[in-house]
């Protein structure tokens, strides 16, 4: 039982924080948001820090690190509301490393680690909402390879990525494929997202694909769980900053001749926000520390964590805006962007109600962290 970070983890945190503070200022971020929501150069800077190879084994060209390092990095990126989707890269590294055949790993992992290739999960379908077992995209064997037909939605940086991890039905079962964006029959329609990032609708018409694994649902669940743990950590970073700007504002802004922080009604709301922040941080730890648990245990833990984080993000985000008053709803003020980021993170990898349902489905007679 130990929740302290070791020296290497602290150094990693410092390095990412330095880059965020100096290299990814709010001005730069807003510039990226305005010019489409994804900057290949900024993504390259993440790669230079080694972050794109975090979950890729050293022999495959990566850093070979684990969920706690992933959590540390995502918290820091959250503090800077970084738009380039590193969570997707963690998924790609983790899933290809665990499930892909040797040739596919040899082709892709080193390129992902170096930042040369961005690979993202193209999973969302119109009829699925947050269900992972609902999949209409079809895969068919074509000679020694496969082709894919179907459409995926809200794919992160979908028109910028180099390849997609695509769940598709093969002989009635969900399998996982890798499809290159420039392959024939792949069409993307990119757009901005609410937080300022980028996503795309991606369609596949007899697009050539490489099989990652026939056990697609297992791999997809694993992928989404990596995404949930990363999202929880990212959220904690955003929540920390949201609290900080709220506290600063309350100690500066005066009404009725005194600072807002003197009013008990507002102070109690801040106490409730602090409660949600610490519960969120606790459950983000829980998610990352459970990421390598056996699948059943892991899935249940991720559902619990994302439920808590979702509730905390909504509470702190909405109350932060309210405590700021008018300035909180302006585009100019950084706080409104924290709020939009939190809102977007709640809707990623399953929202709060979805995960309440998951917790409810998976509930057992015993209870607690170790049950």
């Amino acid at each position: 039982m130990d929740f302290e970070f070791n020296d290497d983890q602290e150094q990693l945190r410092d390095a990412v924080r330095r880059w965020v503070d100096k290299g990814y200022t709010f001005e730069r971020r807003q510039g990226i948001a305005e010019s489409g929501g994804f900057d290949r150069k900024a993504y390259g800077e993440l790669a230079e820090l080694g972050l794109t190879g975090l979950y890729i084994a050293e022999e495959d060209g990566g850093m070979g690190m684990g969920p706690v390092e992933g959590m540390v990095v995502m918290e820091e990126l959250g503090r800077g509301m970084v738009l380039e989707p590193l969570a997707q890269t963690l998924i790609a590294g983790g899933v290809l490393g665990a499930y892909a055949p040797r040739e596919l790993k040899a082709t892709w992992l080193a390129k992902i680690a170096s930042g040369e290739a961005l690979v993202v999960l193209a999973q969302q379908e119109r009829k699925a909402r947050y269900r992972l077992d609902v999949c209409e995209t079809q895969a068919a064997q074509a000679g020694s390879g496969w082709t894919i037909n179907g459409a995926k939605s809200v794919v992160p940086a979908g028109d910028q990525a180099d390849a997609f991890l695509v769940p598709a039905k093969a002989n009635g079962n969900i399998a996982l494929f890798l499809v290159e964006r420039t392959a024939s029959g792949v069409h993307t329609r990119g757009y901005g997202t609410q937080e300022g990032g980028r996503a795309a609708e991606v369609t596949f018409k007899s697009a050539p694909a490489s099989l990652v694994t026939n056990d697609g649902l297992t791999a997809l669940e694993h992928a989404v769980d990596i995404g949930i743990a990363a999202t929880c950590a990212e959220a904690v970073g955003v929540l920390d900053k949201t609290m900080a700007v709220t506290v600063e504002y309350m100690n500066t802004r005066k009404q009725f001749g005194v600072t807002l922080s003197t009013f008990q009604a507002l102070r109690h709301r801040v106490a409730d926000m602090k409660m949600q922040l610490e519960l969120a941080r606790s459950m983000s730890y829980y998610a990352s520390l459970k990421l390598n648990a056996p699948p059943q245990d892991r899935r249940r833990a991720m559902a619990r964590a994302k439920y808590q984080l979702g509730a905390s993000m909504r509470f702190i985000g909405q109350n932060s805006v309210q405590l700021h008053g008018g300035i909180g709803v302006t585009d100019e003020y950084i706080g409104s962007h924290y709020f939009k980021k939190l809102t977007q993170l709640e809707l990623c990898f399953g929202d709060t109600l979805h995960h309440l349902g998951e917790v409810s489905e998976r509930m057992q007679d015993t209870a607690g962290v170790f049950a």
Partner: protein
Amino acid sequence: MDLSFTPEEQKFREEIRTWVRASLPKEISHKVHNALRLSRDDMQRWARILGQKGWLGYGWPQQFGGPGWNAIQKHLFEEECALAGAPRIVPFGPVMVAPVIMAFGSPEQQQRFLPGIASGEVWWSQGYSEPGSGSDLASLKTRAERRGDKYIVNGQKTWTTLAQYGDWIFCLVRTSTEGKPQTGISFLLIDMKSPGVTVRPITLLDGEKEVNEVFFDNVEVPAENLIGEENKGWTYAKHLLSHERTNIADVNRAKRELERLKRIAKAEGVYEASQGGPDAARFRDEIAKLEVDIVALEMLVLRVLSAEKSGKNSLDIAGLLKIRGSEIQQRYSELMMLAAGPYALPFIEEAMEAGWQGEFVGAAHCAPLASTYFNLRKTTIYGGSNEVQRNIVAQVVLG
């Protein structure tokens, strides 16, 4: 970072578990698991068993005869006791006054009072709240006037938990009216058999007599019963409040009670969505929410323990633990009562006693549910109300 306990910690847990299984009387754990009424004898019997093992003062350092456990070991001990259905240790002696006597008492006071606390022979009560001093505790008025080698105590304490069983009571008393209210308070140990002490039980909304009024009418207290210095009592009391940080959340009991809630919900047909009416799925979701709340609280507690063990960072979140722990206690009792629905309504006092041979309405598990729900409303009020706790949390965050 590591979520699992070390092999040594696991072994320690096993030892505790084995001992508790063998030593906790079944008739007592039966009452605890079923929320039946515990008698003074039940509570003291368990205290004496722990005392003989040297574990009633399980948080004590070795120099005072305690086991000298670290924060994690204490947590594991509490958890094993809770899950086994042990009664909560009545905290006023071993958990509350003993650390104050250790830190601020004289060697004579330590030799005189600590053995009786450690063995479970002497029952202590806590004399803090007064009719006019609840959340604003420092406004307390019970006076202690020094006359020669005695204090003469006059005044009234209230909400004194289980004082009807008390042998001794530790009190905050006013010894000066000068300066700030906090600076005129002293910490006094009073023998409850002294002439002039009157205890009057207060019947609470659940019909139980759990708390009391304690009156002091010209009670003579030897001056040697003063802890530390006169007018420094507030400092000592604050030490006491800061002493118990994680136990206050009571997360281990919450885990046990969540399991009971699931058993009750199952029996009442509101656990499996497929086996009940339209409310079953909603009810199950409410249990699921509570389960996440409890896991999150447990993680919060473990973070505090880890910080204490490492000594690196301290987490100043005792207020959060109190708020969340008490809210969760109220919530599980509320859901248990709601699970029973109309069968929570009959009020048959004898059904609260173990071994009652009468006919239950509905099922035996329904009988105590409403009473427990009513009883646990206290948790957000006592120990510094949750609103006071929010003030403290806000102070830390906002300055």
